């Protein structure tokens, strides 16, 4: 145990993580001891406005290879309608929520301004084991069963602290989850050890391209077969932690036809990166990647270019964004309730006016509906049922009502909501992302 007094976050986190087989026991608690950041130092990404070559990154080499790729099994529910999370899910999401409210929330305003997540925070979040949740146990993963619902609950909890920082924390987990779900034994042996180790690489799943009416099933980024491998060209937009990224999974149309996923190490020649700050989720240090005839080895292709794998990847990503909208929507609701009860106008709390009170009701109603739709999509994914429709509906709700919740959050605070003294202006900007982002996350 750490010699210092553990605060509430540390203790609840230890409780939550003890539920994980991998982390059982006190040495883990020591490793996870989230010491008060002695100093928050931001390493700059966005301050560099010019284009640079991608970060050199580490060398990934195949470790002990399994005979076949490892996959997490899924647990099947009893078949009854049930909104009760498992004990493990409840403990995990409570721990993550503590972390989000006590660590992410206070760091959010500076990280938003700097367009950079604090390094200390990323280390803490890496220690939470987010990148291990989706990894099979035999490859060093943390949870015995594959569960998109668990990932949704954790994403929701993180975004309750801050959406931008949640994206920064979750970006590498999308890569480790993708490799776990669809990687072959070679890819898993090469890349997964880094995601269950001490120093988690900055990594991201890059799908978006910079144009109106973007459709992830109609990509302009191309990969053509050449010299026994592939040559990648195109531009990817709003890639989290792009400047520091060491490993990317990039969506590209294979030979001009169906979209597929490729593993791209940042050290491969021909990649340039530039910061691409946006309206919101700025703490995720979003950037634009340009691939200029980047040569990839034959082993870079994930899932044999299966259309099902790609569609599933897009759908699981959309569920992830809906989960973030739920978390940030909850933050809005929890913030406006005490505000409208405290704020007085014309001699009484503004909460006593129907115009105000009804807006609060509608936030709660649409938020709960969005949450349930998101859970349903994830739960269907875990049950091996089709979930394209459910993911699309959850996303549509996140897009429309997430945006409204963000807007109402500002509106209910009036002029005070428009200034950075209150977090609602940031949530307004962040919540718009949920309706347009693709990839990045994977539940």
């Amino acid at each position: 145990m750490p010699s210092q007094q553990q605060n509430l976050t540390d203790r609840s986190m230890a409780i939550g993580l003890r539920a994980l087989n991998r982390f059982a026991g006190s040495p883990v608690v020591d490793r996870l001891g989230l010491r008060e950041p002695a100093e928050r130092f931001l390493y700059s990404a966005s301050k560099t406005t010019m284009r640079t070559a991608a970060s050199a990154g580490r060398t990934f080499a195949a470790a002990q290879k399994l005979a076949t790729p490892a996959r997490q099994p899924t647990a099947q529910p009893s078949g009854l309608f049930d909104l009760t999370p498992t004990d493990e899910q409840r403990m995990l999401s409570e721990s993550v929520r503590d972390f989000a409210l006590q660590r992410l929330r206070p760091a959010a305003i500076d990280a938003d301004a700097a367009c950079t997540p604090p390094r200390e925070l990323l280390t803490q979040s890496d220690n939470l084991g987010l990148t291990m949740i989706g990894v099979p146990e035999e490859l060093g993963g943390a949870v015995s069963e594959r569960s998109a619902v668990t990932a949704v609950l954790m994403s929701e909890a993180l975004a309750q602290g801050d959406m931008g920082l949640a994206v920064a924390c979750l970006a590498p987990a999308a890569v480790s989850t993708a490799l776990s779900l669809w990687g072959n034994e070679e890819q898993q042996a090469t890349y997964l050890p880094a995601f269950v180790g001490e120093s988690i690489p900055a990594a991201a799943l890059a799908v978006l391209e910079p144009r109106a009416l973007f459709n992830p099933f109609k990509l302009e980024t191309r990969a053509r077969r050449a010299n026994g491998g592939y040559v990648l060209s195109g531009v990817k937009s709003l890639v989290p932690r792009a400047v520091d990224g060491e490993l990317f999974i990039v969506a590209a149309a294979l030979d001009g036809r169906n979209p597929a996923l490729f593993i791209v190490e940042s050290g491969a020649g021909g990649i340039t990166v530039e910061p691409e700050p946006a309206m919101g989720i700025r703490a995720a240090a979003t950037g634009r990647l340009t691939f200029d005839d980047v040569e990839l080895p034959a082993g870079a292709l994930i899932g044999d270019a299966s259309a099902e794998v790609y569609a599933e990847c897009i759908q699981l990503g959309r569920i992830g964004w809906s989960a973030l909208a739920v978390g940030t929507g909850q933050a809005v609701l929890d913030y406006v309730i005490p505000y409208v009860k405290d704020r007085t106008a014309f001699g009484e709390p503004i909460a006593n006016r129907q115009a105000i009170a009804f807006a609060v009701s509608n936030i709660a109603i649409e938020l709960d509906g969005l949450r349930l739709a998101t859970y349903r999509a994830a739960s269907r994914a875990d049950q091996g049922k089709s979930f394209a429709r459910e993911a699309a509906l959850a996303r549509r709700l996140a897009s429309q009502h997430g945006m409204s919740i963000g807007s109402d959050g500002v509106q209910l605070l009036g002029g005070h909501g428009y200034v950075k003294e209150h977090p609602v202006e940031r949530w307004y900007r962040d919540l718009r992302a949920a309706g347009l982002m693709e990839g990045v996350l994977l539940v």
Partner: protein
Amino acid sequence: MINLEIPKKFGFLVGQAHQVATEVMRPNSRKYDRAEHTYPKELDMLAAVINGMNESGALSGAGAAGATRGGGSSTNGAHPKDETTRNGSNLANVLSVAEVSWGDVGLLLTMPGQGLGNAAIAAVANEEQLQRFGGKWAAMAITEPEAGSDSAAIRTTATLDGDEYVLNGEKIFVTSGDRAELIVVWASLDRSQGRAAIKSFVVERDNPGLKLDRLEHKLGIRASDTANFVLSDCRVPKENLLGSPEIQAKQGFAGVMQTFDNTRPLVAAMALGVARACLEETRERLQEAGIRIDYDAPPQSQSAAAAEFIAMEADYESARLLTLEAAWMADNGKPNSLNASMAKAKAGRTGTDIALRCVALCGTVGYGEGELLEKWARDAKILDIFEGTQQIQLLVVARLLLGKSSSELK
């Protein structure tokens, strides 16, 4: 473990309800929409079948009578002890009501023996009353010309005279009031004591003091009659008072309001049924028009009609899951006033919104009487009004969220 799919064990129930909707409701929809105030005699046959079905639990919620006391006993077979969640009668009722409403919500509302009064009796009657009133069709009379959503403002009075209460006042908007055998009438024992003094009384339809004033001509749900009554020196045995005759400042009104926690999800379910009917019909029409719905492509990259359809489906999904959540909470003994009102608010407004948008998408096919879309759009509106209007639901939700009393948040 989180799972939002409908359990397989309800498959039989939903299948039966769907058959009723397809074979009995749909074929009679237009007929009784046109012949307002004509009793749909086809329902008598159906009521007999449903009474039979009730024995086995299926279709028990085909009307409001399905709403049971808070805990919600499982009527669909015992569940194994190791299961930690219950899927009982509240969920079953919501499912079957939605399914029958997909057929025709007006006909559902006039299902013999399935009145809102039956829900009140089921919720608060004592054993002796259950014996006397069980099996009889009971309507509910709450609203008055000067008291709509504000049911505490009721002016109808009940005065104890020997062994009888004497009721005087006027009641409007009584669903199935003329067809039911019993009317549950809300009246005040003492108007100076406000809502605590409001009690419900069971009045036999043939009581000479209960006079039918008129039947309303309505926008929709025309198969379901809506009666207005005058009560003049209407005498009922004092044993016909439901609940306690004491005027308790705290509990009195809460007792009658408790009925709503159970019936609001059912009205939400009605809206879901109508909305689904509209969506299915519209989807077919759009397909005929060459519109394909693609759930993988972003809506904004598809045609406006496809994008609108996905948007409507999303709100339908939200309303549906909120309704299932409220019912599931009731089945599991969790207080659900907040969720029941959230479900009713979302489903009520979504039902109307979807129906009206579907009419527009389908053009004259939607607006004309040749198809049922225009009827569904008229029917849907009442579901955002009765059992508490949209605004009342938002008020209930807000008061609970903000911890406000009805005097603070009016």
